[in-house]
Structures are given as structure tokens and as C-alpha cells.
């Protein structure tokens, strides 16, 4: 019987720990969000935004995962992409345009470019395209271990986009063909009953 007690408390404890370990990261993200927001707002008046890409944070999946969820009602868009991915590059302007027109939206570009290409390819690309959204590099080689955690039906092909807020969520293994296509998709996700 005492072993049951141990089991029960350990289950409970583990649960509590796992919840706790998620919480601070979310809080951190909220903070990071507000920081990036304010920097974005200031950058909207100037064109100093490109200087923010002198370094780009490199995450493993464990660190990225909390950014795929929110407690906020705000529309969040997470887009998995890479400089070498032609259809990804094609749809980036639509995502950027949407985020610019809707300042209350959180757009996160998750680059799957290799960290060693950051200075030679990724940063020059972001500067040349005048991308002002938040960018992180996801460096976690064993993709088979984390793709299902993003969404079980995702094959791993990019671009891949998640649109979500605290209550709705949709996944898109496709290229957005236009700003209109993106607008409609966001509307259907966020404004559905």
C-alpha cells in the first residue's frame, strides 16, 4: 500500500513539475513577445530593423515547443521555412505583409537553415528582403523525433504553418498562394465559432 502512495505522489509530483517547467518558459515567451513587439513598433518608423539580425537565436525543439502555444487571444503564426526552400521564400512576403497590416499578430519565422549558414546565407537574405519579423533557427538534427510533436500529420516538408491563438489552431502543409489565401485561412481559423 505504501508503494501505491509513493507511486501516486510521484505521479502527482511529476505532473506538477512538468506543468511548472512549462510555465516559466511561457512567461518568458510573453516577455520576449512584448520585447520583440516594442522593438518592432520602434522599427516601423525607422529602417533599423535589419540590425536586429546580427545574431539569430538557435533553438532545439525543446526550447521551441513553448512558442507553438499561447494563452493569448492574439493571432499567432508560426512558419517553418528555409532560405533554400523556394516555395517558402515565395510565401514570405504574404506573411510579412499580414503581420505588418495586423500589428496585433505574432509572426514567428522558424528557419531550418543550418546554423553554419546563418552569416553567409540567412542573415544576408533577411536583410535583402527587409524581413522584420521575429526569426529563430531550429537546430535539432533528429527531425523524426520532433516532427510528430509539432503535428502528427506533418510529413516534414516545408513550408509548414501553424495559425493559432488560445482557443483555435490550424496546420498547413502547403504554400500560401497569395495574401488573400493567407487572410482567408487565418480568418477561418481564428474566427470560427
Amino acid at each position, binding site marked *: *500500500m*505504501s508503494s*501505491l*502512495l509513493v*507511486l*501516486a*505522489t510521484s*505521479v*502527482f509530483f511529476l*505532473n506538477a513539475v512538468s*506543468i511548472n517547467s512549462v510555465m516559466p518558459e511561457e512567461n518568458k515567451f510573453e516577455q520576449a513577445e512584448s520585447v520583440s513587439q516594442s522593438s518592432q513598433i520602434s522599427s516601423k518608423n525607422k529602417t533599423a530593423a535589419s540590425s536586429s539580425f546580427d545574431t539569430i537565436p538557435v533553438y532545439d525543439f525543446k526550447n521551441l515547443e513553448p512558442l507553438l502555444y499561447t494563452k493569448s487571444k492574439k493571432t499567432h503564426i508560426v512558419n517553418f521555412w528555409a532560405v*533554400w*526552400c*523556394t*516555395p517558402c521564400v515565395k510565401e514570405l512576403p504574404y506573411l510579412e505583409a499580414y503581420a505588418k497590416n495586423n500589428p496585433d499578430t505574432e509572426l514567428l519565422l522558424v528557419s*531550418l537553415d*543550418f546554423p553554419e549558414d546563418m552569416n553567409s546565407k540567412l542573415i544576408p537574405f533577411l536583410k535583402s528582403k527587409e524581413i522584420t519579423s521575429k526569426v529563430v533557427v531550429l537546430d535539432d*538534427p*533528429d*527531425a*523524426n*523525433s520532433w*516532427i*510528430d510533436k509539432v*503535428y*502528427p*500529420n*506533418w*510529413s*516534414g*516538408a*516545408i*513550408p509548414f504553418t501553424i495559425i*493559432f491563438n488560445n482557443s*483555435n*489552431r*490550424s*496546420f*498547413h*502543409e*502547403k*504554400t500560401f*498562394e497569395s495574401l488573400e*489565401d493567407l487572410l*482567408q*485561412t487565418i480568418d*477561418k*481559423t481564428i474566427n*470560427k465559432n
Partner: protein
Amino acid sequence: MNKRVLKTALISMSACILFFSQNSHAQTKETNPANQPENRPGPPNGGRPGGGGSPEQSESLAQMKGFKLGDKATDFSLKNIDGKLISLAGLKNAKGYIVVFTCNECPFAKLYEDRLIALNNEYAPKGYPVIAINPNSPENAAEGYEAMQKRAKEKGFTFPYLVDEGQKIYPKYGALRTPHVFLLDKQLAVKYIGTIDDNARSATDVKVKYVENAIQSLENGAEISPAFTKAIGCPIKANSK
């Protein structure tokens, strides 16, 4: 005492159940729209990523029309870089086939070229040849026939490198990205679908060689595990019609 123990266990377990059920509830709610037919207008476009204007994803793996594990794959007759037509039936003494959809330009495909050569050099003599197929539209000259010939020569491919003429074969297999491996047995039954190993970026850091393990299991009559893996790869470029 016993009562207290039970009570604690009950509380913690219900907390557990509550936590997980909330999660799974959220998930069903989230994924539900994909199941509503009105959200998926128009005909499926052959499983091509990037096509269609459907608001919910219509090209996820779950909805792909391609082969699943255990299905019998179709043979093909495709032009090799030397101009000859290659079919699986024409490969004598094969005990199985490592069919890989790959291409010239994709950084992931490039990272695996040397490993594909090594795989073929080791396993073709044992009855498991590599057959590479470029599924990309030749509209992009960098993926065209001449560029394929050039790349194969540069790298010294020891296996056939075929053109998916008219892009008819890759949708049948359900290839979604490059590189994407389909391991077939002698009867063309699909035995493994996925990536070559667990580290595209660095061959020296590979811990699990999925394809090699699958071949070993096939040889030994053992269960292949995992028989299905995922990886980041380049989307296949469909013809722009």
C-alpha cells in the same frame, strides 16, 4: 491510513486525467475542421505539396494517396542519365530495392549523396540496389536532365538516377520531399518509408541508420522498427501546369 493513501492516489490521478484530457480535447477541437468536407473543396491534386487553395491543409501525410507500409508498389520504366530505360523488374538478382526520391539542388539531398553511394556500394552486391529518382519538374533547368547527368558524373553515382518523366511516379509512391526513401522487398511490398538516418547535417554524428537497419531486419526476417520515419526535406517542385 489506507483511506488517505487512496485519496491521494485518486486526487493525483484525476489531476493527471484532467491535464491530459484537456490537452486531447483541445487537439480534437483543433483538428476537427480538417474533417469537415466543406473545408476541402475541389479535387485532390495528386498529393502535391503546395497545390490547391484549401483553407485547411489538404496535403498532409494522412491524406496522401501514396503507398503505405505493406502496399505493393508499382514498377516503372524511367529514363536513366545514360539514356536507357530502367525498371525494377529489369534489375536482376535483386532481393529488394532502395527507391529514393532525390534531386540536384536540395541541400538535404546533397548532404546524402555520399551516403547514398556508400549505401549502394555496400548493399547492391547483397541484392539491395539504390534506385534514385528525381521527382522535380525539369522546368527548372537546375533539375533538368542535363543537370542530372552533370551532377551524377561529378559525384560519381554508382546507381541509376532516373527522370520522373511527366511527374507520374512520385505521387503514386507518395513522395513528399527530397530525399524520401521507399524500401521495397522482392515482391515490391513497401517495407520502410522515410529518411536515411537520423542526422542529415552530419554523417559522423549519425546514431541510427534507419535504412540499413530496415534492410538488416528484412534480411533476417525480423520486424522492421521503425518502419516509418519523418525528416525535414525540400518540397518536390511540381510542374506549374
